């Protein structure tokens, strides 16, 4: 049937796979943004740079320290998380008492500075990062070709999202986070160290972004601009999903990636704008977002 409209299944499912991968990254990044915004009330414009730093951490570990993919996957996001903690402690936390717009401006500026520094040293051309040996090659499924590495990215992303959801919704630490998101001063009046919780949450958001960056490194070339375009789309995803639920952010991310992929197959000209069209519609119909809690 698809042949009738001149689209092969390989093309369709190939594009859906790309969409699913993009969706996985949208999910991880919008999750990080939502968690940070929920507790800190800061829109973290540095998120794209943190994603990029994750990819660069992997590249640097390989090219400067001779350390491969698996150490990069473990250490890279941790290093970026530590820089995030430093940023929160030294700068972002000073702005909690004032209008949250200043936090947005601050993280925006920091993102620009970081991207600028990397661009200065590494230019704008992409740097290659090899696919790890164990994930080389692909599987022909008959209706599509599935590169093994991409299968790994999808599985790893789903795992990360699930683990994050479990920690937030089912553990004691998650309960502290959910409570502090609702009423931080009351939680502090119970004796819980809310400022430290905020620092750790920011670090965790940065960790998520950087983790996506490491996963992305072998697929997209590692370059200082890789976070910028992604971040704009991720913000649209967050608006669509709403800040209300963790599960909502995850589902919205994957779904929009797939929608983008489908659009690429049937109406490629619209593929770069379809998410923003959805965002406009959602803002008109349900401004709090699909899963957002109406204030």
């Amino acid at each position, binding site marked *: 049937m698809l042949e009738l409209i001149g689209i092969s299944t390989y093309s369709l499912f190939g594009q859906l796979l790309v969409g699913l991968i993009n969706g996985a990254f949208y999910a991880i990044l919008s999750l990080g943004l939502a968690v940070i915004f929920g507790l800190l009330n800061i829109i973290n414009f540095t998120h794209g740079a943190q994603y990029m730093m994750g990819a660069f951490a992997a590249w640097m570990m390989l090219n400067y320290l001779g350390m491969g993919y698996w150490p990069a996957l473990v250490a890279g996001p941790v290093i970026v998380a530590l820089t995030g903690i430093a940023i929160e402690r030294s700068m972002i936390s000073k702005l909690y008492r004032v209008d949250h717009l200043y936090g947005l401006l601050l993280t925006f500026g920091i993102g620009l500075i970081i991207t600028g520094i990397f661009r200065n040293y590494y230019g704008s051309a992409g740097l290659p990062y090899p696919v790890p040996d164990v994930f080389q090659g692909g599987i022909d499924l008959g209706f599509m070709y599935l590169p093994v590495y991409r299968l790994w990215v999808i599985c790893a992303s789903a795992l990360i999202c699930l683990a994050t959801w479990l920690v937030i919704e089912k553990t004691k630490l998650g*309960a502290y986070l*959910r*409570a502090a*998101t*609702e009423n931080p001063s*009351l939680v502090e009046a*119970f*004796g*819980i160290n809310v400022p430290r919780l905020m620092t750790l949450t920011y670090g965790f958001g940065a960790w998520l972004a950087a983790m996506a960056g490491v996963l992305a490194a072998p697929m997209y070339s590692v370059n200082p601009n890789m976070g910028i375009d992604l971040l704009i789309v991720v913000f649209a995803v967050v608006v669509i999903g709403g800040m209300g639920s963790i599960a909502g952010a995850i589902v919205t991310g994957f779904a929009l990636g797939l929608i983008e992929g489908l659009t690429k197959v049937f109406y490629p000209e619209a593929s770069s704008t379809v998410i923003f069209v959805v965002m406009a519609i959602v803002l008109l119909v349900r401004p709090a977002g699909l899963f957002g809690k109406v204030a």
Partner: protein
Amino acid sequence: MTTIDDYTEEARQLDKEPAMSVEGLEAWYGESHVLHGLSFDIREGEVVSLLGRNGAGKTTTLKSLLGLVEKRKGSVVYRGQQLIGMPLRKIAPLGIGYVPEERGIFSGLTVKENLLLPPEVRPGGMSLDQIYELFPNLRQRLSSQGSKLSGGEQQMLAIARILRTGARFILMDEPSEGLAPVIIEQIGETVKRLKNEGFTIILVEQNLQFASDFADRHYIIEQGTVAEEISNSELVNDMEKVRSYLSV
């Protein structure tokens, strides 16, 4: 629940000293100067109530004791420690529990998570079984979301989670507000029991009858200062007079 605990002995030594002594407390919300030099004290094991009209500064007083206001000045000494200048998160570990006016039940948490949220600050807090015995309704609602509880259940949960922590100095803000008489009676029984167990309680109330059921003394707050101090027997004898005075 133990009635003789590790610091009742200490309290006996400090017998001459009040548990909490407030001197010249001032507080601001932004530009608004809400408390203008409030002074009172409360002894170990006493129940003291803060009475007054809406907007008199009763809730602000409780918040200022903890440090939940933007700016405060003056002196709040609790068992020998100055609380002004102390970060908010260090207050609860001193054994001070807070039951806020709006109850503060977290809607994103289940009843059980709400109950277990405040960390233990002193040994000798109520066990979960003891809490379920005191508040049987809560046991049935453990996995419900916090927001699904009725007003009375939320009030019980707000008190229960503090009792679990072992705090023995409780700030309670209008526990009877908006509740049906039957529930108020239940809450009242709980407060009475806490008093018998030797808890020290500062109670903010508009319901004079409720306050007179267990408070030993009352402070009438007016425009951010203490206008008058009356004993409970004075209140009971002149309740109508006080009530009309407060409703003007």
